[in-house]
């Protein structure tokens, strides 16, 4: 049988963003797969070396389009470690509010994303609409819907608007009612079961081989390897939450884990609203003088947090000048998006490729940078 070369993406309803997989297929079965990133390479790491420490804030959220706040957090956290700055108590809680709201937004969008490759678009429309309600709150807090530039070195940019916590509470109550409907619609649906149950497996040894983190890892090895638990940052050590785990990672388990994490985020957000200090500063100065002359003491640090797709980190090197010397980005989906596709897509059917991308949470902008 002759092999045929097939291009999946960058323009394809099942493809996540500007990414492409070149597949050599025999009938329906993939014989060889080559990930082809680079459509979104914008040279962020070089650009960051040529921008001021403060100026980079406008740049970095764009590294991951759907979950931009993690970039601001790792960047701010790294600079605070280098400059030895203590962040005000209230700012920690506001940061958690932002990060968990962002996690809710991307998890809901991720649940809806399963509609693309399976052809069940209803859940996609629901999810996009639901995410927009979260973006409305972001707009009220930060002034922007997608790229917030709100978490800055030294704290957060400004105080929360009056009455916003009530609005967040109201949204959480709505989500509590609405999200179980997603389960009824999609995660219990026989067609979706047919496509992702016992399919696109991620065994535990493959997790370690590739370096997969996040939901993929936790649903395969059954351990609570979540950086919010293992290395608590902000005030994650002062809130109670569970880390959903499993010992069998097929596509459906990963979606179910994602579904459970939504409720844990809601639980964290309720505690944040309750425990957040009512008064207090939200920002301290990282350096003296105008932002054009800010310097960060020389040194290097790896700053990492738990994103919706796993460990997300910046390796920051400063030489004590006004601009970073080097910043390297660890995209959370780098392992499963490149080596994972090359090695473990082989033997699957053509239509499983986009399900792999979806249930693994491959994010092309953070692979390309």
């Amino acid at each position, binding site marked *: 049988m002759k092999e045929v070369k097939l291009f999946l993406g960058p323009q394809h309803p099942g493809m996540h963003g500007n990414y492409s997989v070149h597949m050599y297929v025999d009938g329906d079965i993939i014989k060889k797969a080559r990930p082809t990133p680079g459509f979104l390479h914008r040279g962020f790491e070089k650009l960051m070396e040529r921008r001021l420490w403060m100026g980079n804030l406008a740049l970095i959220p764009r590294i991951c389009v759907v979950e931009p706040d993690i970039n601001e957090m790792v960047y701010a956290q790294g600079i605070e470690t280098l400059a030895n700055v203590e962040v005000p108590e209230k700012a920690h809680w506001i940061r958690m509010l932002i990060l968990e709201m962002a996690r809710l937004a991307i998890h809901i969008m991720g649940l809806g994303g399963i509609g693309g490759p399976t052809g069940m678009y209803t859940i996609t429309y629901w999810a996009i609409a639901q995410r927009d309600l979260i973006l409305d709150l972001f707009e009220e807090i930060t002034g922007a819907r997608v790229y917030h530039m709100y978490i800055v070195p030294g704290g957060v940019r400004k105080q929360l608007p009056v009455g916003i916590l009530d609005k967040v509470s109201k949204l959480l109550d709505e989500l509590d009612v609405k999200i179980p409907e997603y389960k009824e619609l999609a995660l219990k649906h026989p067609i979706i079961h047919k496509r992702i149950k016992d399919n696109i497996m991620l065994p535990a040894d493959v997790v370690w081989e590739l*370096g997969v983190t996040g939901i993929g890892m936790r649903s395969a090895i059954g351990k609570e390897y979540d950086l919010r638990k293992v290395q608590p940052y902000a005030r994650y050590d002062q809130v109670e939450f569970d880390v959903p785990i499993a010992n069998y990672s097929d596509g459906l388990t990963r979606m179910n884990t994602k579904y459970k994490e939504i409720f844990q985020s809601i639980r964290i957000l309720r505690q944040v609203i309750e425990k957040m200090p009512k008064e207090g500063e939200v920002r301290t100065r990282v350096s003296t003088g105008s932002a*054009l002359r800010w310097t960060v003491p020389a040194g290097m640090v790896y700053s990492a947090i738990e994103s919706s797709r796993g460990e997300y980190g910046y390796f920051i090197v400063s030489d004590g000048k006004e601009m970073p010397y*080097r910043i*390297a980005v660890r995209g959370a989906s780098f392992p499963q998006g490149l080596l994972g596709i090359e090695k473990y897509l082989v033997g699957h059917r053509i239509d499983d490729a986009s399900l792999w991308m979806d249930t693994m949470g491959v994010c092309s902008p953070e692979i390309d940078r």
Partner: protein
Amino acid sequence: MMNSMNNIIKQIDDVLTITNSEIITNRQFAIDINSGDVHQSLAYLKSIGFTQLSILTCIDLIANNEFQLIYILNNWELGLFVIVRTIIPRDNPAFVTIINIFPGAKYYEREVHEFFGVTFEGNDSYSKPLLLEIWDDIPPLRKDFDPQVYSDSKFPKRDLDKIYRSKIGGVD
């Protein structure tokens, strides 16, 4: 936490030849290792629980005419990061791959090859560029690559009435 980290550093120091160690935060430390010892050091660190390669990257230390290779490993059980650093020469930079120890390093090495020009013996998938298509200049993340000069040479110049520029740290 600090205690267990000090114990780990001591344990590593007893077994490996470390030229320098540095505590960065209470959950993160860095060790400097001669380039000849990197593979056995990484294999040892993997055996004591640092089972995940978080990132492999490179720093261009142009003032010393050196590259610094960075391997960041994560120990999920203890919640510790270790940054393993080694120096290689900047002229004809070459090193040996670590994909036998951490298979996930394959694409990180390809990326370092593309952006810094370091070749990794044993990792031979370089026939096609990963991110940069039809690139015809020196590797772009090296410090002597100037994007402004490159862009001026590639694209037509626009005549602007006025160019706004701010003074940064006394330098225009």
